[in-house]
């Protein structure tokens, strides 16, 4: 429920819970990620040699491949989480699908951008209708569609169900798109990304690439934890707001002068000030009801 935070005698906030999405674990992980990024960038931009064929533009591969890896993993996770939600009906999976879809969309768009920026010096053009590029573009569009369904107004359960159906189809659709486009483009013998990478990668380059992939995965984990917690908080707020709205509607239906059943705070009661409605002093122990299902179990406001 939305309430004033409980205050102690000094008037300071008594924060029983965390003040954001961070925790000790994520702070440590964050520091590790920052160190990893610094080292990975050094490896990619400074210490590794330029490629024989591509020159310095190979340094974008050290960025592009980790981004692609994260994007594809996140999208796979959306599908898995959607299936699990439809099976288990657990909110945990729904929130996982939401968080990984957003991260997947950000990284897929970054994939397209970094790929295009790499393509200009390498192929001379920002875009080719290469099967993998085209399938990635379609993936981005499918994820935009998922986001649209995710942000529909209304009841969380119905939204979760709709999103799960759309999310579950993301992977099969991308697979079908990829098959169709590969087949189509193979008729024209187009080049693929793999052809332009040396088959035998110089050791230092291989290490830089693998290290950066690893750092990318750690960064994705950090983002995922925070985004998951954020999505969870948003859901709590939404459920609490629904509760409050329901309580207010009930209050309107109740006869005037009687305390509204389950009204969380005095300020929310539309009835005129009566002796039974307490003044909103900070010391009033507002009934902080933890779960949305306990509407009827809330205590009435004490004078």
């Amino acid at each position, binding site marked *: 429920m939305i309430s004033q935070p409980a205050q102690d005698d000094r008037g300071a906030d008594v924060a029983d819970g965390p003040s954001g999405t961070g925790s000790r674990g994520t702070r440590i992980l964050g520091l590790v990620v920052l160190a990893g990024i610094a080292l990975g960038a050094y490896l990619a931009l400074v210490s590794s040699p330029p490629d024989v064929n591509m020159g310095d533009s190979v340094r974008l591969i050290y960025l592009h491949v980790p981004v692609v890896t994260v994007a594809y993993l996140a999208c796979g996770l959306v599908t898995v989480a959607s299936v699990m939600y439809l099976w288990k009906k657990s909110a945990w999976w729904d929130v996982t699908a939401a968080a990984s879809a957003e991260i997947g969309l950000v990284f897929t768009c970054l994939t397209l951008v970094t790929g295009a920026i790499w393509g200009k010096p390498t192929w001379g053009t920002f875009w080719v209708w290469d099967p993998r590029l085209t399938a990635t573009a379609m993936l981005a569009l499918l994820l935009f*569609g998922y986001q*649209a*369904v995710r942000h529909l107004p209304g009841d969380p359960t119905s939204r979760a*169900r*709709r999103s799960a*159906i759309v999310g579950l*189809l993301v992977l099969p*659709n991308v697979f*079908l798109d990829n*098959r169709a486009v590969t087949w189509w483009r193979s008729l024209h013998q187009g080049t693929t990304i793999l052809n332009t990478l040396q088959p035998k990668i110089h050791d230092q380059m291989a290490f830089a690439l693998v290290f950066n992939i690893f750092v990318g995965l750690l960064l994705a984990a950090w983002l995922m934890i925070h985004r998951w917690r954020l999505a969870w908080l948003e859901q709590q707020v939404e459920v609490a707001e629904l509760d409050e709205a329901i309580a207010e509607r009930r209050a309107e239906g109740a006869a005037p002068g009687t305390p509204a059943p389950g009204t969380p705070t005095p300020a929310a009661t539309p009835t005129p000030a009566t002796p039974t409605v307490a003044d909103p002093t900070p010391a009033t122990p507002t009934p902080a009801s933890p779960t949305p299902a306990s509407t009827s179990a809330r205590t009435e406001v004490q004078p």
Partner: protein
Amino acid sequence: MFRDALAVAGKDLRIEARSRVALNQVAPFALLVLILFAFALDPDSGVLHSATPGLYWVAVLFCAVLAIQRAFAIESADANQDALRLSGLEPAGIFLGKMLAICAQLAALEVLLGLGVVVLYNSPPTGWLLLVVTCVAATAGIAAAGTLYGVLAAGLRVRETLLPLLLLPVLAPVLIGSTRAFEAARNSTPSQGWPWVGLLVVFAVGYTVFGAFGFGPLLEES
């Protein structure tokens, strides 16, 4: 289940026969799209002729979006959706029925568009068997995917913008496959077209099966 499907399909087609929206609005829109393509591309240099398969199927996809939106718009009036839920009809049957009705309307639109490209783009059809089978497979796929995403978007205020965004990326393989099949038919190399028909059939079967299962829960939500 099939009896339910025929009942729902019959209802939808009867509504269309009485309101004639597909006839009066979607069909002219189909011809309008063909004409707009002619305005955008150079009609004299043969571009229209060589691009005919692709332009034809893009036009079909646009009309399909309209037809599907219409198919679910008729349900949102007068609390029809509640009536459908309470009617005791099997959800898979309702899905198949709606899909069949959309197939019928799309088939009519495809014939019309076919006449349009023959006349307007100077593209006489060849390879009849391949053309017809491609149309059947592609239409089934479009209708199946369209009915599934249509019910998902049904009843929402944003459905007009949501449905194309959800549906068209999903229909990309259908566009690729049917265009390639049409090109093979036109180039008199049907052996290159039949594998694409295979892809279309896989798509249609997959979405029909998935749609039949997924329709029930989504109908409850709408």
